[in-house]
């Protein structure tokens, strides 16, 4: 390379390079899209393969878990005792166009979901006694598995454990986990909370096709929801050693009139002692779910 660059060519290359570098640095008052913020990046290869190595502990620094659309700060459910502790933070949304193409009846359901988000019935009482499904309340409130993509943008780190045949992703939130089966043919054997995930590499991008969901998880605390017809295609691309671009296409014809996209950045947690800690939330929700059936309620 060096031999082929001589005289004016080398100068010209240097100037062009400098201009390109400048272009990659955000100017004051101007936010450069993340995929153009860094010089073109090629991640290290996973040992023994020609595919990128995406191993690591990652975290979204968004507030999408409260609302995937752009939102202002909100009071918590019990400001009279919880004060600022329960208030919801404001944040920029992660949805392309900042709107969701709900079918009219689905939009009504989203509003009902939000209104009933604090409903905390134990599983069983309604279904078995009345024969109808109750408003299920916010799944996270009850320490349920968060589903995909929600696990990826919850305010907890998650770890990618990459191997050539399987990619395991585990969140600090309740050790919630999903297994991505690489180049896998079989369809989902049964519906599940986290979906049936099959992955493959498209160049530098890990593409994960997720189907076989049940209808028991939400996208956020704002009541955004999906049906069992949900189909998600996720794309993970390294932008730098410390950043992944995450994109997902969400398709659910029972709930939305067309597919829509979300995207956000995942940040590598680089602290020397970084490890997933343990957030087992079951003990924190038992009193809410079951306390009223104790012999001495409130004990």
């Amino acid at each position: 390379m060096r031999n082929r660059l001589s005289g004016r060519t080398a100068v010209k290359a240097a100037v062009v390079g400098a201009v390109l570098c400048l272009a990659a640095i955000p100017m004051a008052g101007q936010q450069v899209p993340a995929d153009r913020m860094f010089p073109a990046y090629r991640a290290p290869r996973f040992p023994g393969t020609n595919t990128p190595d995406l191993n690591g502990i990652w975290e979204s620094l968004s507030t999408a878990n409260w609302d995937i659309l752009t939102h202002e700060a909100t009071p918590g459910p019990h400001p009279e005792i919880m004060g600022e502790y329960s208030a919801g933070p404001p944040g920029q949304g992660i949805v392309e166009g900042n709107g969701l193409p709900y079918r009219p009846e689905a939009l009504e359901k989203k509003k009902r979901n939000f209104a009933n988000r604090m409903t905390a019935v134990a599983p069983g009482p309604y279904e078995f006694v009345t024969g109808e499904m109750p408003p299920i309340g916010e799944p996270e409130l009850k320490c349920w598995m968060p589903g995909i993509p929600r696990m990826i943008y919850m305010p907890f780190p998650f770890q990618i454990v990459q191997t050539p045949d399987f990619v395991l992703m585990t969140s600090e939130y309740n050790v919630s986990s999903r297994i991505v089966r690489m180049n896998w043919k079989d369809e989902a054997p049964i519906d599940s909370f986290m979906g049936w995930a099959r992955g493959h590499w498209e160049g530098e991008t890990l593409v994960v096709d997720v189907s076989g969901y049940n209808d028991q998880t939400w996208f956020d605390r704002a009541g955004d929801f999906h049906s069992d017809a949900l189909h998600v295609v996720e794309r993970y691309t390294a932008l730098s050693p410390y950043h992944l671009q995450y994109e997902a296409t969400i398709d659910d014809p029972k709930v939305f009139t067309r597919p829509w996209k979300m995207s956000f950045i995942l940040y590598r947690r680089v602290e020397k002692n970084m490890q997933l800690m343990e957030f087992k939330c079951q003990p924190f929700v038992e009193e809410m779910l079951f306390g009223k059936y104790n012999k001495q309620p409130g004990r």
Partner: protein
Amino acid sequence: MSRRFLMSLGVLAVVSSLAVSVAGQAPAAAQKAPNTATKKAASAKTSNYTPPKTAWGDPNLQGVYNYATSTPMQRPRAAGDKEVLTDDEAAELQREKIATINTDITPRDQVGNYNDFWMDAKRKLLTEDKRTSLIVDPPNGRMPPPVPPTEAKKKEAAYLREMNARFIAGFMQDYRDGDVGNRCIIRRRNEGGGHPYLPSLYNNMAQIYQTPGYVVIYSEMIHFSRIIPLDSRPHLPQNVKTWLGDPRGHWEGNTLVVETTNFRGDDSMGHALGRTGVTWGGTDPETYTIVERWTAVAPGQLDYQVTMADPHTWTRPVTMLIPWNKTDEQIYEYACQETNYEIYHWLSSARAREAKGEVYDPVAADREANGGGGGQEER
């Protein structure tokens, strides 16, 4: 070998995964560190076999494994010093297993019972080396003698016994009468869904993942992703207690060695734990130690050797050796908390009984649950 021995071996296999509720808290003076306890136990194949390596040079143990077996945890007393069955004895026992295990062992009309659908068919198999017990140390194949229980420990045991009787009688007072498995927090440690990985009624499965710097052992119940760093970093500070433990691993030759610490003693809401706890065998989470070793001994076969010690519970450490066999089966999602109807039904039915005027009879309940008396059952 007498038929009586074979029968008792069969019965023991069924209970081998149940709690060994030995109580005790007197600190034993000199207890050997578990990682120096016994290494001789590994099977003869260990030394000869060199497993394939990962691209970064670690022994490659990856795959989905099943660790079910009919070999009992403790050697039946009838077997005396016999460490290994003859081929004929093993064949006879195997035939008996196939005839007995793969049937519905509990009445179908009883709510909540498990039938044949749940049983792991691999439980019919003895370990390939035809041992009479999974325990390889102490050399008699039996649990080490317990240390004498303190007054506090006796009180706790009586409380747990009463709680268990109330539970079985259908008069659960409180969701905290449930154990960690009923409560969907973790799989009961006495049931083998994690360290120590002991054969159980069903779901004796784990998948091993390896990536540079980590080994991950994934158990389907309850979506337990056990992430084991291999970079010899220090453990979490002692004030941080966990349900699943804080594991650290390293390679000794072809053997993966994992030491796990930082176990909880309460339910993280400040309540004492229910009928079974976070550590195995009713041990004290503060003083319990566990060291596990996985060694590939043949293609698709690992020896899993686990050494546990607790000077507040046993007079010496105990080591078990359990084969892990690769399987083509897959790990799927296991939901628990999400559909935990049990706790609600147990509590609401108890309240309904009380409302109808039924009265809990502690003496009858204890007789039903514990056979009355008051002593621990001999196993």
